[in-house]
């Protein structure tokens, strides 16, 4: 596969250049509501040794980079501090919301006690947002974490599902999630079966919350093999 030796070393054919508006055209054929949009994930994007990850769900593309535990004069506590720099989200409140959500997810996954007094910097760039930016970002960060070699509980998968008049839709784009009752971004550690982050919005009647979360959990589980394959491939390339 011809790869351009730029700082972005994604093989050419994976960067399938489909113009965004052209994408709307084949949107009309009704996508099966339990399928994800065409997704491409890559663990270890840049040549550099630090952890980096890229995730693309339909037209939502997010790039994540983790700069490994680094010395920092001011921070002496007995655990590592995690700083996050989130770029590419226009809406101010969405930016603050996503930042809180991502930091909480990551600090529940990384063994912070193993890097006392160190700082872990995370850079996330949302290249384009067509719905589900938070769950794509969480997937990208999970890949970057696997590539960076920082010890953590395990790979996390996250899915964004919506409820539209008692029909569940997986991974909707912004056009598909018009007039939706509610939705949830659910991120989840498959090997321990525990959730690391939940972000539910909209107005969901209380009895539907249970099966909405259950549906999201199933979808997150269905993503595990894809992420696992991407990580194993990156370990191969490391040799």
């Amino acid at each position, binding site marked *: 596969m011809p790869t351009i030796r730029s700082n972005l070393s994604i093989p050419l054919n994976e960067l399938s250049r489909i113009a965004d508006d052209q994408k709307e055209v084949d949107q009309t054929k009704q996508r099966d509501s339990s399928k994800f949009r065409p997704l491409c994930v890559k663990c270890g994007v840049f040549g550099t040794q630090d952890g980096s990850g890229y995730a693309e769900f339909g037209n939502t593309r997010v790039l994540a980079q983790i700069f490994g535990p680094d010395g920092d004069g001011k921070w002496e506590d007995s655990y590592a501090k995690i700083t996050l720099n989130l770029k590419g989200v226009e809406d*101010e*409140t*969405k*930016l*603050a*919301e996503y*930042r*809180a*959500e991502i*930091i*909480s*997810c*990551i*600090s*529940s996954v990384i063994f912070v006690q193993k890097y006392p007094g160190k700082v872990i910097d995370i850079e996330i760039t949302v290249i384009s947002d067509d719905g589900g930016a938070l769950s794509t970002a969480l997937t990208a960060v999970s890949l970057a974490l696997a590539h960076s070699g920082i010890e953590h*509980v395990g790979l996390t998968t996250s899915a964004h599902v919506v409820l539209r008049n008692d029909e569940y839709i997986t991974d909707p784009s912004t056009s598909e999630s018009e007039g939706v009752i*509610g939705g*949830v971004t659910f991120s989840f*550690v498959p090997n*321990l*079966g*525990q*959730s*690391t*982050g*939940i*972000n*539910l*919005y*909209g*107005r*969901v*009647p*209380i009895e539907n*919350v*249970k099966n909405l*979360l*259950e549906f999201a*959990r199933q979808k997150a589980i269905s993503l595990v093999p894809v992420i696992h394959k991407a990580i194993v491939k990156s370990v191969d390339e490391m040799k």
Partner: protein
Amino acid sequence: MEVQISDDEKLFLIHGVESDLRNDGRSCEDFRPMILERGVLSGTNGSCRVQLGQTTDVLAGIKLELESFDTIAYPKPRQPIYFHVDFTANASTQFAGKGGDQYGEEVAAAFHAAYSRSLDFIPNLSKTLVAEGYRWKINMDVSILQWAGSFPDAISLAVIGALSDLEIPEVEVAPDDGGKVSVVLKRPRHGGNMRDEEVPVEMWKLDVTKCPLLLTVSKIGTANLVDCCPEEESCIRAQLLVGISQNPEEEKYDVTCVKQLGGGLLEMESVLEMIELAQKATKGIYEALAKRLKTEERRKPGHSFLL
């Protein structure tokens, strides 16, 4: 705020919580005594002060603003409430200078998420859309005076208190030249010698009985509990911020926002248990709040600061 307690004290506290008896005698589902007082700030259109257990102290104030907006850009009616939360330095030293801003933004974002569908809960909120391209904008400013645990609960009480205290003037819309519209305060026709300005303007109030309530449910050991004091907060494994509101049509409850914070892992069933607990707590608080808002006496603003 970081309260230093030793591992033995934590162990004692965790054992207590798991046997449903906390260090101050409360059970897991009890709230600390709450003090709510409206009309505290005279310079605002609506204000409220909430004290949770004589420690957490929150002040919410509303300023109204007549905003003109481009109808093409925003065809659909948007919810007019804008939140801004700031942590005063005396709440805790870590908020001096720019310390509290990032945290304040995150809390404000959580409230935006919870109130994103407020047009459905508050029936007469759509009345704030005054005319084509003009609407009332409700700027909600919350400042945390004292920090001692579970402040999202105190904020949501203060927000509902302030909204219930809010008086919005009635307006008349007179078409003007060039497609513009002039908005005039509606004054009841008054004979007699009163000059036009002194005639009191008619005001209308929002019906806030169905507003969402944001509660933090925390997990310590195997027990879920609400309203944690600082000592308990230092032993928390994971926290869930749950926004619940009453369904306007039937006697049901809707979940408007769930956020997992505090960096912990949660089993699926404990997530559902915590939402269940939050719903029970919300029901109780709604009743207490409704009772409180009815018995509000008129007292000059700032009285509670004199105590």
